[in-house]
């Protein structure tokens, strides 16, 4: 293997830190070959899950068994990728999310008559994009990663090609995403025109000394990048696509879209703000504040009378990313910690909620179980599944002793630390409104139903990997709420500064 170490190649330490990305890439090639050899749903899904687990292994050992072995961090692999504790934390999170999505997809796709296997391929590709995004410290890798993250998602959203709404979701996401990417590219070009560099750190080093019209061009460029990122995170006023795509996409895809893709982009946003010192441009902070307040208001108000669970979760995710922005605006080490904790709790909770929707749904029916009406009286039919959804809704609402409370508490602490009273008022008001529609949904679960429902999870829902995953997620939600200290320590260890 000595040829790997020749001049210009990577050092062993760099190879090791790249392991998650390399393993995942190999898995993609492997799954492609496996599908070509034989279409077999269980086999192909298992290979994908095994690959994801393998990619997760070094990160898992690094974080949970540090006495055994740790990754040699931080490493800069070419100017494009920087792998540090922060990147590793988010890589692990994205991989876990992808794992959850893969198992949920397996439960979901069983009922599909078309080609079931490619969804794993797309999922793995998108995950790879996510890993690249969280490791990127350069506009080029950022954009490549972002596109690698998004393009497979178009296919995934429109995966059920014969379903009108799935196809519509895919098309909408494709077209609008292209618009957003155009904004990002334009913004990068503007910044490059003034800075002559695409690396975050170099931009950050120069930003203090630049002034005058050059500075305003950079502000303009950064604002355009924010437009693109705002779209990907579905912040108001770029949120209009969210409910349509969430509703149309197959339930497991929606869960991935709501968690992994947003986590990756958000992690990047924080890194960009810290490394490229965007905090030194107050106008950008103003933009973020405006986006945060609008997102909180629009998300919560739109969810108020929503009768479709998937759309409701879409609106709630808009609001949640508004809350998260408050932490970003607060800046500082506590803010990075707050973002980590909040994203962790949000991802776990959202996956659980969509997991239940997935287990209730099957592509065999002409649409997913998404009307709140479908969930009426679920408790009397599937009490344990209902318990999971209940905990997820409580956690989304931020009720103490669930994961959501810890996240929200962190955001409020970070905001109060920096005296962001206006934003905090929005957070508090938004949470109050949020409580209404989460509880409204919850009540439906426990109503006595007088007739047989069309939609119900199969009786053996808990026997598959998808069911096990959802149960695990509920335990994680409770654990995060009751005993968050180890997780907080994990996030603190993965700090950016």
């Amino acid at each position: 293997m000595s040829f790997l170490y020749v001049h210009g190649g990577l050092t062993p330490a760099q190879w090791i830190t790249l392991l998650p990305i390399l393993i995942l890439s190999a898995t993609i090639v492997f799954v492609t070959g496996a599908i070509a050899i034989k279409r077999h749903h269980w086999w192909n899904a298992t290979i994908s899950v095994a690959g994801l687990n393998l990619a997760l292994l070094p990160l898992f050992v690094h974080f949970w068994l540090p006495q055994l072995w740790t990754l040699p961090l931080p490493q800069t692999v070419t100017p494009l990728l920087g792998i540090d504790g922060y990147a590793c934390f988010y890589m692990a999170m994205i991989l876990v999310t992808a794992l959850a999505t893969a198992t949920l997809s397996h439960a979901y796709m069983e009922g599909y008559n078309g080609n079931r296997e490619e969804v794993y391929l797309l999922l793995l590709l998108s995950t790879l994009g996510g890993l690249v995004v969280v490791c990127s410290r350069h506009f080029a890798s950022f954009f490549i990663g972002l596109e690698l993250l998004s393009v497979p998602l178009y296919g995934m959203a429109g995966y059920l090609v014969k379903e009108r709404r799935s196809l519509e979701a895919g098309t909408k996401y494709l077209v609008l995403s292209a618009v957003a990417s155009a904004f990002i590219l334009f913004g990068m070009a503007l910044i490059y025109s003034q800075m002559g560099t695409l690396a975050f750190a170099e931009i950050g080093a120069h930003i203090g000394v630049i002034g005058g019209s050059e500075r305003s061009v950079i502000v303009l460029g950064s604002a355009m990048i924010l437009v693109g990122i705002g779209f990907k995170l579905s912040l108001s006023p770029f949120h209009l696509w969210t409910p349509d795509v969430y509703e149309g996409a197959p339930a497991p895809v929606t869960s991935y879209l709501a968690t992994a893709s947003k986590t990756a982009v958000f992690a990047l946003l924080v890194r960009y703000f810290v490394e490229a010192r965007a905090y030194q441009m107050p106008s950008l902070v103003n933009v973020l504040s405006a986006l945060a307040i609008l997102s909180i208001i629009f998300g919560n108000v739109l969810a108020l009378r929503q009768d479709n669970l998937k759309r409701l979760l879409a609106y709630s995710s808009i609001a949640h990313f508004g809350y998260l922005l408050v932490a970003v605006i607060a800046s500082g080490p506590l803010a990075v910690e707050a973002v980590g904790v909040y994203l962790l709790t949000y991802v776990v909770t959202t996956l659980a909620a969509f997991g239940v929707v997935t287990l209730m749904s099957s592509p065999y029916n002409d649409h997913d179980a998404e009307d709140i009406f479908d969930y009426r009286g679920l408790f009397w039919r599937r009490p344990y599944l209902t318990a999971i959804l209940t905990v997820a809704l409580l956690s989304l609402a931020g009720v103490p002793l669930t994961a959501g409370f810890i996240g929200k508490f962190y955001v409020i602490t970070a905001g109060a630390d920096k005296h962001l009273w206006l934003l905090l008022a929005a957070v508090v008001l938004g949470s109050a409104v949020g409580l209404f529609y989460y509880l409204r949904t919850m009540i439906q679960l426990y109503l006595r139903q007088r007739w047989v429902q069309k939609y119900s999870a199969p009786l053996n829902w808990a026997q598959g990997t998808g069911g096990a995953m959802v149960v695990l997620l509920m335990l994680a939600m409770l654990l995060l709420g009751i005993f968050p200290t180890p997780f907080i320590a994990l996030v603190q260890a993965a700090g950016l500064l």
Partner: protein
Amino acid sequence: MLNLLFVVFLSPLLGFIVLSLGRGRISQNLATVIGVGSIGVSALVTLGAGIQLLSHMPADGAYTQVLWQWMEVGSFTPRFALRLDGLSLTMCGVITGVGFLIHLFASWYMRGDEGFTRFFSYMNLFVASMLFLVLGDNLLFLYFGWEGVGLCSYLLIGFWYQDPANGSAARKAFIVTRIGDTFMAIGLFLLFRELGTLDISQAMATAPGHFEVGGNTVTAIAFLLLGGAVGKSAQLPLQTWLPDAMAGPTPVSALIHAATMVTAGVYLIARTRVLFELAPLALHWVGIIGAVTLLIAGFTALVQTDIKRILAYSTMSQIGYMFLALGAGAWQAAIFHLMTHAFFKALLFLSAGAVILACHHEQDIFKMGGLRKKLPLPFWSFIVGGGALCAVPYLTAGFYSKDEILWQAYAGGHLNLFLAGLFGAFLTSIYTFRLIFTVFFGKEHSAANSGHGLAYTLPLIVLLALSTFIGGQIHLPLALVLPAGPGEGGGADETKIALLSGSVAVIGIALAALLFLGERKFVKWLKNSTLGAPLAAFFGAAFGFDWLYDKLFVQPFLWLVRVNKSDYLDRAIMAGAGSLQSLNGVLTKTQTGRIRWYAASVALGAVLVIAVAVLS
């Protein structure tokens, strides 16, 4: 054993969880094993932990066990720790020891009841909450346990929920104590604002440096905490709920409304002693409230006819003694009386339960009589327990604690409190033996059949033993927690005071024998005399507090409710909700589903973002 301290409250909690999950699925025998066994485990662990604590007493007199730290955000580190010192050990001993005996008795008393499992699950939850209350090292957890026991009290008073009267008694108890709880919560908020901590030991350590003696804030805090204590311990003016609370099953009355929960107020004041010492006015009022309550309760008990109500008023008056002791600065004596009271009052309630069950749920003492022969064990229990209640000199546990209180009140120069206590002791003797003579002597009115079995005899015998002078010899390890009272360790007049209070008790018993043994001619004449009849009615109505509160609070409140029937006050709030709904309507219109408009909105948003970025 000390590191197993968490088992003490975890065991009843687990019992509660198992019993409530298994409701309808587990047999009564299994429920007995779980319900009683969990308390037994807890009692054994308390015993072990107590022995270890006392043999290796830490320098600060307390053992702290951190169980769980919720999170750590900046300087905010809410943690849950248990703290065992002499005071909480005493409380734990009473709660688990007496609690175990009462549970055991209840397994006999409640057998065959439809809600047997439910009963034990509530009881276990109660014990867990009560232990949480006394063991938590944080006022927040104390408050949590405080509300927990309130909830269990509510659930158990209304245990036989099919009778609406029980439901309304439960509601009354809950609402009246809630009033006190609200005061207490405000007091805790104030305390937190002032000291920045709710950790009990920390707060008590910093308070003397932070507050000046008699300062306004600390006085306000002490009074607010007193409000909470008064509500929980059924003292004036929030005492009205306790007699009604007797609607619950008798073991509940024994455990919650005599031995443990109602003494939580005493515990609270003893726990926050430092604050009360900084607010002499509040402490003075503690004594006065205790004195007035014990007199009012004593007078009321004289004319009651329901066996449990008599005992309820006697509980009220005995807690009055404890408050009196606290007010007189006799901290240790108050806790001592708390313990002996738990013994003999539990004994009295349990034997009252035995009597009630033997007489087929008859509670009117005048419909009983001559039960001496048929129910020997309850009879002797009543004799010993009643004797302890009246503080028969040297033979009973009650004498040792009550005499200590009276002596320290006297030695501390609180002559008014001393006299009130002395007169109260006199009243106690009369009403107690009125009850005993009426129920156990005289003509037989009804057929009665005695209970049997270990679950029936064992608790009565153990409590009976503890109510004699044996219970009075227990030395409580309070020296490191509570200061010595005035006149501690004896004084010139102590024997005189003991003889005085002892003779008052004996004279009271003799008077009761004179009045209530035999034909009761004098009593009947007195009851029908022009002066006696209205006075008896006044006493019978417990000095008309229920009537007064009904006129003062309930009626005006109902009037307000009627006036506000169409919810004027909520209109303002509804307007906010309505405007959100209309905003929702407007915003929903933006979700057209048209990709063209969506793309345009992205462009519009971009213009907005750029405008904000460039212009600000």
